[in-house]
């Protein structure tokens, strides 16, 4: 739209009259009431007026995000077209300055980020007409500094996993060169993207097993309906090399585990519904089941202290494991969150800290660095930020466009 056409079409014959009116101050009577409310400064002719400003300026972000920044997976459960990833400074005390940027994430899209390259990945879906018409599943690669799209890769089918957000619905390979994206139709598979070329390599089935836990340099481990695991080993080109099944180590009916491990130095820690802790070694080419220990003492078990929540686990840079805990747990309460976060030394298998979350806790994330902050999705679906060492609530992040902020990612 050019100025000229706006003028001619919109204002038509009235333009001359309006132009001639530009020089009169006809608004004075209407505005007299407010003009006196604030006692404006008298005009100061010695002071230079503000210069006209540039149009079109767009902000950018640092390639390495500060350690207290988080990336919030906002599902927007009541308007899923409008899902987002919101980049927030969790340490900023002034609420209005917390948002650093926002990316769209449509129809329960999935999100992950590269730990070293300045790239962010969103797997999302669209119908041609909102909720109807042809569906497209698209992987979108974002530039981390501009939040501009580097590339969109259109799926050849429409099978990408649509579920409440998971840390491992996507993953970057251990060597940083591949991206794995989970599919579920409900037939399960994952698609491999070459991150050097930004091209799709292919899709590999994972019969009976879901999600993409990164394993070794370029293997993928998935969790299976039989209570075991499946490792898919890829070759140098990202193609299927071999599959390896890890024998069942839990019963999906009677001793189910959460599919949401924290992975610490290549060891995946999967909490069970009733406080078991299963450890799987993800460092090698194939996953290896290591051992089981208990997050709860016999007394705590008797009181039904259980891990509970949606995205209930994370780790910090010191290698500590965090999980939300719920008292009086029972069948059906495993996703309902809890009122404490327990912090473990996974080497010593000891609980180090208990952080009370008086506003309830549904999901959690932990920021980077030596003095991490614990960020918790509370019962009002705002984010409570705790200082881990003191266990104290620092502040609550609210009014940042949050509706259902169900997964909190640390930044890189």
């Amino acid at each position, binding site marked *: 739209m050019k100025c000229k056409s706006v003028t001619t079409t919109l204002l038509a014959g009235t333009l001359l009259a309006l132009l001639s009116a530009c020089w009169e101050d006809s608004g004075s009577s209407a505005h007299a009431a407010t003009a006196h409310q604030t006692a404006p400064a008298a005009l100061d002719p010695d002071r230079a007026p503000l210069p006209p400003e540039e149009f079109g300026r767009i902000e950018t972000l640092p390639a390495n995000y500060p350690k207290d920044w988080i990336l919030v997976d906002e599902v927007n*459960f*009541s*308007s*899923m*077209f409008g899902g987002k990833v919101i980049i927030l400074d969790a340490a900023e005390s002034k609420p209005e300055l917390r948002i650093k940027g926002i990316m769209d994430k449509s*129809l*329960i899209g999935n999100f992950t980020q590269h730990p070293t390259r300045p790239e962010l990945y969103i797997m999302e*879906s669209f*119908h041609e007409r*909102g*909720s*109807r018409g042809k*569906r497209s599943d698209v992987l979108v690669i974002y530039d981390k500094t501009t939040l501009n799209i580097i590339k969109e890769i259109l799926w050849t089918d*429409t099978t990408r*996993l*649509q*579920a*409440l957000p*998971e840390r491992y619905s996507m993953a970057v390979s251990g060597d940083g060169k591949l991206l794995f994206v989970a599919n*579920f*139709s*409900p037939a399960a598979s994952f698609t491999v993207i070459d991150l050097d070329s930004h091209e799709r390599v292919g899709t590999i089935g994972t019969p009976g*097993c*879901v*999600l993409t836990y990164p394993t070794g340099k370029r293997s993928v481990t998935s*969790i*299976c*309906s039989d209570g075991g695991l499946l490792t898919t080993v890829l070759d140098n080109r990202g193609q299927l090399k071999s599959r390896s099944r890890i024998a069942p180590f839990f019963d*999906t*009916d*009677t001793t*189910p*585990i*959460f*599919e*949401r491990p924290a992975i610490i130095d290549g060891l995946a820690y999967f909490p069970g519904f009733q406080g078991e802790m299963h450890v799987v070694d993800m460092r090698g080419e194939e996953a290896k089941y290591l051992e089981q220990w208990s997050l709860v003492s016999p007394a705590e078990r008797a009181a039904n202290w259980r891990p509970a929540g*949606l995205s209930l686990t994370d780790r910090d840079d010191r290698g500590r494991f965090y999980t939300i805990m719920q008292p*009086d747990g029972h*069948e*059906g*309460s*495993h*996703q*309902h*969150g809890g009122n404490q976060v327990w912090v473990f030394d996974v080497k010593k298998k000891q609980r180090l800290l208990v952080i009370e979350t008086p506003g*309830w806790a*549904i999901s959690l994330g932990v920021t980077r660095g030596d003095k991490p902050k614990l960020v918790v999705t509370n*019962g*009002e*679906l705002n984010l409570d930020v705790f200082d881990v060492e003191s266990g104290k609530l620092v502040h609550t992040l609210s009014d940042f466009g949050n*509706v*259902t902020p169900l997964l909190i990612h640390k930044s890189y």
Partner: protein
Amino acid sequence: MFKLFDRWFEKSARSVAQQSSRRGVIKGLGAMLVGGASIPLLPVARAADPAPARPAEDGDPTSCDYWRYCAVDGFLCSCCGGSYNSCPPGTEMSTITWIGTCRNPVDGRSYVISYNDCCGTTQCATCLCQRDEGDRPLYRSDKSNDVNWCLGSKSSVYHCSTAVVVGLAFEEQ
């Protein structure tokens, strides 16, 4: 006990009477059982008498504590212009879904319930009901309510959830 979205939807804050339910009766068959749009050919008991003398069910199908909703997690179609077993106008019923086993307090029997989603219109966004009894993570997709089950329908956009009686659970036969 907080539910996940208590404050978000006021109605979900109503206290939910825990319904008795038993599951584990039918394991691992979820998607298969309800893979078709018509009544699946299941090895479950069918009613001999279509007109029982006394009311066969009791309770309020717009309430989260209604017996059929023991494993549900979503917006109840009963509040959205549909009913517990029909979809609101203009939507489409998904053909692939997850199941639960809920006990009907009136006749004491356990039934297999299919939680078919209604799809094709933006989320109904009322009467959020999260019961989760017998819910399992994604690796047990037949029992996982975290998945968007608008699969096998023209639209993948979730609107609300129904609770359709498939038949008696095996244990009752």
